[in-house]
């Protein structure tokens, strides 16, 4: 029975300062995400005074909502999650709020009518990434005819990177197609695009993987990636940087997944009831072809 719960509370909390954190990860849909998960898991450890309850949502909002509800039921100290999409969190956030558990948003924000729905947000700024890429194009290839290789349509990264990029150099985009963030589909899409939009001489791809697929397609069509067709990409995984070093990519905007330590600090502060900044933007770099092999080898993911 539950009657003894109160009685044994002290026994369970014997560690005293162990914080129970429920973390609902969005999924494992890309290398970036797995790196992010790794980082979170290695930072939020028992050694660090945190008891992590990790639930993978498999890219489904309903799974995530269920997980959040379950966190309430388990009465964790802090709830952290990377929302699958922005909308649709009203009910469960309200419930969390009613039960008095602080929320840390990771990676993406939410759009909700709940007052004061979360304590803090930490993550990258996809729109900014798109913007950075667009600014590079505006500066270095102002006349380029751009083909935009979109990620999975409707995903946050796709929507925001497109928004950021098109906001700067939208008039230069001659065509778009989705490669679902995967190499193989990126390749097929670019294969077709090169023949449909033969004037294309720059490709903006929403992630490195699709960009690597694009390299294949460009080479198969007898052109030289990085020269005949320039490639601007986002993510900065090791393979992407390698392509940059090999001269196949021209510019890579980083989207840094390794912010577990920052998250751990935030979670502890929140649990301790300390004042924390409303948002923490993880610093993203950008790489151009001056990147060296050493940078690549130093890359962890």
């Amino acid at each position, binding site marked *: 029975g539950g009657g003894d719960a109160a009685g044994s509370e002290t026994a369970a909390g014997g560690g005293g300062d162990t914080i129970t954190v429920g973390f609902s990860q969005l999924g494992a849909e890309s290398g970036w995400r797995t790196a992010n998960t790794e980082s979170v898991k290695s930072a939020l450890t028992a050694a660090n005074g945190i008891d992590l309850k990790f639930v993978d949502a*498999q890219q489904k909002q309903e799974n995530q*909502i*269920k997980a959040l*509800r379950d966190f309430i039921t388990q009465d964790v100290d802090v709830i952290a999650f990377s929302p699958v*999409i922005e909308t649709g969190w*009203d*009910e469960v956030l309200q419930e969390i709020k009613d039960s008095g558990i602080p929320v840390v948003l990771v990676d993406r924000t939410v759009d909700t009518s709940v007052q004061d729905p979360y304590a803090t947000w930490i993550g990258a700024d996809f729109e900014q990434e798109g913007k950075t890429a667009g600014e590079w194009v505006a500066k270095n290839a102002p006349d380029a005819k751009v083909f935009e290789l979109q990620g999975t349509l409707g995903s946050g990264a796709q929507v925001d990177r497109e928004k950021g990029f098109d906001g700067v150099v939208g008039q230069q985009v001659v065509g778009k197609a989705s490669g679902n963030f995967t190499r193989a589909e990126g390749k097929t899409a670019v294969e077709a695009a090169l023949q449909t939009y033969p004037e294309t001489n720059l490709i903006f791809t929403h992630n490195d993987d699709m960009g690597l697929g694009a390299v294949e397609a460009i080479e198969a069509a007898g052109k030289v990636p990085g020269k005949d067709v320039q490639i601007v990409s986002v993510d900065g995984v090791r393979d992407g940087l390698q392509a940059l070093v090999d001269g196949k990519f021209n510019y890579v905007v980083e989207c840094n997944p390794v912010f577990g330590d920052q998250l751990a600090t935030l979670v502890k502060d929140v649990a301790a009831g300390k004042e924390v900044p409303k948002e923490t933007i993880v610093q993203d770099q950008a790489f151009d072809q001056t990147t060296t092999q050493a940078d690549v080898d130093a890359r962890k993911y």
Partner: protein
Amino acid sequence: MSTGLSPQAPSGAPPRPSTRRVRALVDRVDRRFLPVVGTLVTLVVMLGVGQQRYSTARSDFLSMRLLSNLLLDNSYLLVLAVGMTFVVLAGGIDLSVGAVVALVGLVTAKLFTAGAPLPVVLVLGVLIGTCCGLLIGVMVQVFDIQPFIASLAVMFLARGLANVVSTNSLKIDDDGFSALASWSLKFGEGRETWRINASMLIAVGVLLLAVYVLHYTRFGRTVYGLGAGDRGAAVELMGLRPARTRIGVYVISGTCAGLAGILFALYTKSGFNLTGIGMELDAIAAVVIGGTLLSGGVGFVLGTGAGVLVYGLIQVLIAREDLDSWWTRVFIGAVLLAFVVLQKVIAGRRR
């Protein structure tokens, strides 16, 4: 640590002499009910295991809250699975339901943005599902296209339309809709609070209605008859109207998908084009776990109710296990496997 206090789950192996009595009991139950009994037993076992394994000093695993959450989180799935049960019993399958849920959610959101009043939106939303179902039904019945393909086509169609409506997630902030979404009866205090909300009531209502239709009307019996195979030839020669019934089951399934779309929209208060990918498989899995045979004609819709709870419980257990993404998938597959095999053993023992 709370072992001694938790209610004893009937999971352990029963002592020898009573094995025979259990067997005798099993033998007395109508064979057709065995799979459902199996599902219920599994449900109880899982609850028992959960109680043993996941109860902490702070909270018991087994609680009203758990049960109410289970129903709350799976109300849309229950409605979908009930609709699917009709189709499966009639020897068909409906792969379109997940895509329909997405389409309905988006259209609902769009309609609210356009300022349509709540009742209109709700009715239109459900009707979209009905139309999709009707389309499948007509293809299956009139043009003799296999259900798998007809519903696959409608799945592509609905998904494509949803993509056309919007590739962004759309927020719903209609007051009436929000009120409906947040309405609930609360019971208990503090951490023990559990609730009954509109979605749960609707889902349970749909389930009861389905029990009535399937077991106490001619339409329902004809649905079972259609599942006898031979593409409904027997039912036709028996002087019933298979055409109507066959279209009927797809309309029901479509309508349920429409309703589930609304429930899902209530659940998330938004519409999104990527929702519901693979949801049809969840629904089918729940139906199968509930003891309905995919070949048609055998099963009970109440079993589907139990199936949804089992399926939901599997997810809760997984969530409590701190698994990596890949282990989660493997685990779901393994549980599904264990379940199907177990069911086979129970139901097939006397053959």
